[in-house]
C-alpha cells in the first residue's frame, strides 16, 4: 500500500497545478480536477484488478474531458478525440488481460493471486500461458497510461493539443501513482513471474529510450518536445524498475519525485510565458531563444532547470539518473547500463541545445520575436511560488535528498 504521505504529495502537486493561472474559468474544471486527483490518489489503494480497472477508467474519462476542455480550440477537441480512442483501445487491452488472468486463476484479488502463483503445481498447467499473456496485456495498458514507448503516441498529440495547464497536470501528477500501482501488483501478486516482467520492463525501457530521445532531437514544438523527453525519463525509471531489487524500486520513486519537481518548474515556466505574451509564445522551442536577454533571472533559472533535467552533476537531475544507473549496474545488467549511458548522452544534447538558444543564440532568424513580448513582465505570487519551489527542489535536492529517499523507501516497503 502506498502511504498517506504519498497521497498528500499528490494533492500538493495537484494544488500547485491548480494554482496555475488559466485563461478559462469555469467551475466544472475545478470539479473535474479534484475528481481526477481523487481517482489518481485512490488507485494505489486498490487490492484487486476490478478496483484498478475502475479507478483507471474514472481517471481516463476525466482526462479525456480535460483534454478537450478548451471547446473553442479545434486542436483541443482533436486531442480529446484521439486520446479517447486510443485510451479506449488500451482499456480494452487491460480488460482482456484481466479477464485472461481471471480465466486462468479464478480470482482477481492480489493476495489470492500471490498465494496461487507460489504453488509450483500451477506451472505444469496451460494456465500459465494465459497468465503470461494477461500480464503482458495489462503491462501494455499501463505503459500506455504512463506513455512508455511504443505506446507513447498519444502523449505528444494530447500535450500539444490541450491547454497548457491541463498538459501540465497530465505530465506531472498521474505517473507516480500509475507506476506505483504497476510495481505493486508486479512485485506483490506476480512476484513469481519476476523473470518475465523484468524482461518486459527492459524491453519497454529500451523502446522508451530510443523513441523518446530520437524523436525529441528533431522536435521543434515545446510541448511535444516535453512529451518525448518525458518518454525518455520513463525509460530511465522503468530501467531502474527492471532490476527488481529493493534499491532499484526505491530509486524508481526517487526519480519520480525529482522528475515531478523538474516538470513542475519547467511546465510552470511555459504556462506563465504563455499567459504573459501577446500571442501564444512558447509553442515552439525556438521561441525560448534569448529569454536571458529579456529577463536575466528568468533565463538563469530556466538554464538551471534545464541543466538539472539534462543531468549535469551538482543538480538533482543528475542524482536521479545516477541512482537509476547505479541500481542497474548493481544488478549486473551491463548491456542495459551501457544503453542508458548512450541515451543519457543523447538526451543531454537536446536539453543543452535549448540552453544554448536561451543564452547564446544570436543568429536565429526571428529576432523580431524578442520585441513582441513585454521586456519586463511581472509574475504573480502563485506562479512565482510554483516556479521557484520547483526550481529549488530540482537544483538542490541532490545535496540533501534524505527526506525524499526516506519517502521512496517507505513506499517501496509498502509495495511488497
Amino acid at each position, binding site marked *: 500500500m502506498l502511504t498517506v504521505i504519498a497521497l498528500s504529495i499528490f494533492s500538493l502537486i495537484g494544488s500547485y497545478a491548480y494554482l496555475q493561472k488559466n485563461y478559462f474559468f469555469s467551475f466544472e474544471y475545478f470539479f473535474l480536477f479534484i475528481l481526477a486527483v481523487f481517482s489518481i490518489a485512490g488507485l494505489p489503494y486498490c487490492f484487486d484488478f476490478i478496483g484498478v480497472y475502475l479507478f483507471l477508467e474514472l481517471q481516463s474519462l476525466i482526462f479525456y474531458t480535460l483534454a478537450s476542455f478548451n471547446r473553442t480550440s479545434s486542436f483541443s477537441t482533436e486531442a480529446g478525440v484521439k486520446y479517447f480512442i486510443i485510451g479506449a483501445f488500451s482499456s480494452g487491452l487491460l480488460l482482456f488481460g484481466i479477464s485472461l488472468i481471471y480465466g486462468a486463476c479464478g480470482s482477481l484479488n492480489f493476495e489470492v493471486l500471490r498465494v496461487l502463483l507460489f504453488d509450483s503445481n500451477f506451472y505444469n498447467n496451460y494456465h500459465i500461458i494465459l497468465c503470461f499473456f494477461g500480464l503482458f496485456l495489462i503491462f*501494455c495498458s499501463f505503459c500506455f497510461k504512463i506513455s512508455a514507448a511504443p*505506446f507513447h*503516441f498519444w502523449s*505528444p498529440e494530447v500535450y500539444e493539443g490541450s491547454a497548457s495547464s491541463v498538459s501540465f497536470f497530465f505530465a506531472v501528477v498521474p505517473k507516480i501513482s500509475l507506476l506505483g500501482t504497476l510495481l505493486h501488483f508486479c512485485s506483490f501478486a506476480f512476484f513469481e513471474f519476476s523473470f518475465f516482467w523484468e524482461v518486459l520492463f527492459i524491453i519497454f525501457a529500451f523502446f522508451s529510450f530510443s*523513441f523518446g530521445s530520437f*524523436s525529441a*532531437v528533431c522536435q521543434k514544438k515545446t510541448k511535444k518536445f516535453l512529451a518525448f523527453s518525458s518518454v525518455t525519463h520513463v525509460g530511465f525509471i522503468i530501467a531502474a524498475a527492471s532490476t527488481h531489487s529493493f534499491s532499484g524500486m526505491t530509486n524508481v520513486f526517487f526519480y519520480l519525485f525529482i522528475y515531478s519537481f523538474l516538470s513542475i518548474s519547467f511546465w510552470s515556466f511555459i504556462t506563465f510565458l504563455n499567459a504573459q505574451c501577446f500571442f501564444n509564445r512558447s509553442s515552439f522551442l525556438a521561441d525560448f531563444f534569448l529569454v536571458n536577454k529579456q529577463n536575466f533571472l528568468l533565463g538563469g533559472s530556466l538554464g538551471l532547470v534545464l541543466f538539472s533535467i539534462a543531468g549535469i552533476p551538482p543538480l538533482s537531475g543528475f542524482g536521479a539518473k545516477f541512482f537509476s544507473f547505479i541500481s542497474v549496474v548493481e544488478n549486473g545488467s551491463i548491456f542495459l547500463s551501457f544503453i542508458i549511458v548512450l541515451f543519457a548522452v543523447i538526451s543531454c544534447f537536446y536539453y543543452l541545445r535549448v540552453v544554448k538558444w536561451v543564452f547564446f543564440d544570436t543568429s536565429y532568424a526571428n529576432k523580431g520575436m524578442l520585441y513582441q513580448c513585454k521586456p519586463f513582465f511581472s509574475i504573480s505570487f502563485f506562479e512565482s511560488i510554483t516556479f521557484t519551489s520547483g526550481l529549488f527542489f530540482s537544483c538542490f535536492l541532490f545535496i540533501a535528498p534524505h527526506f525524499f529517499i526516506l519517502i521512496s523507501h517507505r513506499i517501496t516497503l509498502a509495495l511488497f
Partner: protein
Amino acid sequence: MVVEKKSVVVFYKSLFCFFYFFGQMSERFKVPVLKTGKNNILRKFESCFVRLSYSMFFSILFFPFLGSLFAGFFGRFVGRKGSVFLSTFSIFISCFFSWFFFISSFYSPISFHFVLFPWMSVSSLFIYWGFLFDSLTYVILIVVTSVSLLVHLYSSSYIENDPHLPRFISYLSLFTFFMLILITADNFIQMFVGWEGVGLCSFLLINFWFTRIQANKAAIKAIFINRIGDYGLALGIFALYLAVGSVDYAIVFSYVPFLVQNSFYFFIFNFDIVSCVSLLIFIGAVGKSAQLSLHTWLPDAIEGPTPVSALIHAATIVTAGVFLLARSSPFIEYSSFILNVITFFGASTALFAATTGLLQNDLKKVIAYSTCSQLGYIVFACGVSAYHVGVFHLANHAFFKALLFLCAGSVIHAIGDEQDMRKIGGLAKLLPFTYSSIVIGSLALGGFPFLSGFYSKDIILENAYGAFSSAGHFSFFIGSVAAFCTSFYSIRLLYLTFLSPANGFKKRFENIHESSFAISFPLVCLAFGSIFFGFFIKDSFIGLGSSFFNQSIFIAPFHLNSFSGEFLPSHIKLFPSFMAIFGMFSSFLLFNLFRSELVFFKLNPYLRFFYTFFNKKWFFDKFYVEIFGQSGLSFAFQHTYSLIDRGFFEIFGPFGISNSTQFFSISFSFLSSGHLYHYLFSILIFIFSFSFFILSPFSFSPIFFVLIFFMM
C-alpha cells in the same frame, strides 16, 4: 626597495608560523617522552626540545618548498635579489639542520619515524604521509642540501642576466623539495611522488631556455626515457602491494623473508616474487641513475644551464636510483640472481661510459659521461652487496662531480659560451683559480691517492673482487679498465682546455676574467669537500664493523664481502690505483709528446672505426632512434592513431553517434504522423510480434490459436 623588505618580513613571519604549526602538530603525535619522574619543569623542557627537533626535521623538508613558492609565485614582488636571497636562505636552513643531524648521527645513529596524516585509504591499502629519517637519509640529505645550497649561490651569479632568474631559482628549490620528499619517504608511494617530482623538475630545468630546440629535445628525451624506468618502478610497487599487501617500508622489509621461494603470476608468466620485484625496482633505478640501455638522456641533459647539470645530473637526481637500491636492500639481498644482474649492468655502464668519454669533444659531455661511468661503479657496488660503499662513493662523487661541472660552467661563463674543448685551450694562465679547482676535481675523480675518490673507488673494486664470484671478478677487471679510461680522459680534458696552446678566437680571450665571488665560493667549498670528505668520513661509513648505517642498510650475512675485501693480496688492492695513475701519465705523455701522432687515429681506417665508434657513443642513439623510434612512430601513426583513434573510435564513437542520431531522429519523426490509424496499427504490430515471441514455446498448443482468434 621597500617592497622587498616588506616581503622579507612576511617571509620571516611565515617562518615562525611554520615552526609554531609543527610544534603544535607534534603535540598530537603522542610520541613517548622519556619519563623524568615528577619534575614537571624538566618534562616541559624536554617536550620543548622534542618539539624543536620535530620543527627541525620538518623545516629541512619544507623550507625549500617555501622558498620555491616565494620565488615562483611572488618573484615579481620580491624582486630578483629578493627571490634569490629567500630561496638560498631557505636552503641554507635546510642544509644547516641536515648537517646537524648528520653529525649527531655519528654519536647516536638513531632513526626517526613520523606519521603525519592519512593520504589514501582504499579497502586494505593505507598510505600515510610519513617521514623516515635514518642514517641513509642523513647522508643523502647533506649531499642534496649542500650541493643545492652551493648551486643556488652559484646560479645567482651564473644566470644573473637572464630575465627569468626567479623562475629558475624556484625550479631549483622545488627540485630540492621533491628530492627531499623522495629520500625521507617512509613508503614506496610517497617515494614515488618525489621520484616523479624530480623527473618533472628535471624536465623543467633542462628546458629552462625553452627557445632552444636542442634543450627541448634533450628535455623531452630525459622525461621520455625516465618514463620507461618509472613504468618499471610503478609495476614493481604494484607487484609489491600484490605480494605483501602494503607499501610501507617497515612492513614490506620485515615481510621479505617469508616471501622467499614464493612465486606469483606476472604477465601470465610464473616468477619468483622477490626476483621479479627486485628486477622491476632495478629497472626504475636504471632509468633514474642512467645505467646502460637507459643512459642516453644523461649526456644530452647537459643542454640545460650548467648549474642544473651540477645539481641534478651530477649530484642528486642520478643518486635517486642508487638511493632506491640501497633503501630496498632488505628486498634485493634475497635474490642473488638479480644482484648479479645489477653487478653486470653497473660494470658494463662503467666501461661503456668511460670509453665513450675518451673521445668526446664537448667539455660538459665528457663530465656527463664520467658521471655515467661513476654511477656504474656505484651500482655494481650495490650489486656486490656493498651498499654502504656505494653510498660513500655517491657522497664523494657528488662533491667532486659538482665541482667539475661548476668549474666547467665557470670556464664556459668566462670564455663566452664555448663548450668545444678543441676551440678553447690555454686557459691555465688566464683562469688559475678555476684551473686549480678543476685539477682537484679531476684528481679526485680519477682516484688519485688520498683524495676522496680514492677511498671509495678502491673499496668498491676490493669489495667486487672480494665477492669471489664471476660477476665480482668481471666487474673488478672492467672497473680497473674504466679507472684507466677515467683518469685518461680527465687529463685529456685538462690538457685540451687549460694546458694546450690557445685554439679559440682572439675575441674570446680578450675579455676573459675570473668569475665573481658567488661563483668562486662554491668552488672553494666543493674543492675542500673533494679533498677531505672521503678521508674524514671513511671510518664511519666503511670502517670495518662500523655501526653508522645500523638498520637502514641490510646486508645478508652470506653477502658480506667487506672482510674478504679487506684481506686481499696487495697486488690486487693496488691494481686499480696503478691503472688510474698509469692512465694519467699515459694521457699526459701522449698529449704532451706525441701530439702530432694523434692525427694517425683519424687517418688510419681501422683506428678511425674505433674513433667513430667511441665518439658516436657506441651508436646507442642511432640504434634507438632507427629501430625503436622510427618503427614506433610509424606504428603509432599508421595503426594506433589513424586506424584506431581516428578510425574505429571516431566511427563508433562521437561522430557515429551524432550521425546515427540525426538519421534515427528523422526516421522516427515519420512515425509520429498524426494519424490515429498509424498509431493503433503500430501498437497492434508490437503486441502481435511480442505475443508471438512469448508464446512461441507453446506454439502448437490450441490455446495459442484461441488467443490469436480472440485478438483478431
